[in-house]
């Protein structure tokens, strides 16, 4: 953005997804996503648009794998324990 006006806008580096993935799920996929996010920035700053775009894809993929796994575990977990939750909701005044 600084020195090349002809470049298309910077591909999304999905930092928000990466941070959410790191906090709520998996440190491994979160870190992979953050590393690809930084690659997006570096490639773009050097004018390598195609590389930036492929790093952007990878950043998105890793963040979504992490968040997807978290959502899946969470949903399965609460589907299994759902009855227990509603049982204790009914007695919510007791604790």
């Amino acid at each position, binding site marked *: 953005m600084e020195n090349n006006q002809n470049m298309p806008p910077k591909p999304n580096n999905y930092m928000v997804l990466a941070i959410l993935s790191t906090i709520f799920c998996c440190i491994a996929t979160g870190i992979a996503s953050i590393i690809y996010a*930084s690659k997006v920035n570096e490639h773009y700053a050097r004018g390598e648009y195609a590389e930036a775009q492929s790093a952007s894809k990878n950043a998105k993929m890793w963040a979504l794998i992490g968040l997807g796994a978290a959502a899946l575990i969470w949903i399965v977990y609460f589907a299994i324990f759902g009855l227990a939750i509603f049982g204790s909701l009914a007695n919510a005044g007791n604790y």
Partner: protein
Amino acid sequence: MRGTIKKPIVLLGLGVLSVMAVLLYFSFNPEKGLFFPKCPSYQYLGIYCSGCGSQRAIHDLLHLRLGDAMNHNVLLLPALFVIAQHGLVKTGILKTRSFLNYRLAPIIVLVIVLLFMFLRNLNMAPFAYLAP
């Protein structure tokens, strides 16, 4: 465009899930509840990751106990702040530059996360506070 049909459904699903999650984390204290999933990295490796304690921190936050939230996970609050600022910039409400748009933002986040994860696993006096 790809995803034009899928997007509203995905957003709706995420919305319903988040409302459910907020209600759940407001009503129940993960510290006492048996039915909250434990962090796999703590359960299987015995290591506190950077996200450990965030369920308890969310519960504290929903009850406006900021101190307890920081105690369970120091990074949750700053992370939510940065994401909120990013959202406000994206929607045009804030006219400043998003923190996440800086070129070094990913590296800085990475260093903070790794440092935090390393320090909170040290079982020593000043760092024990960082453990969830």
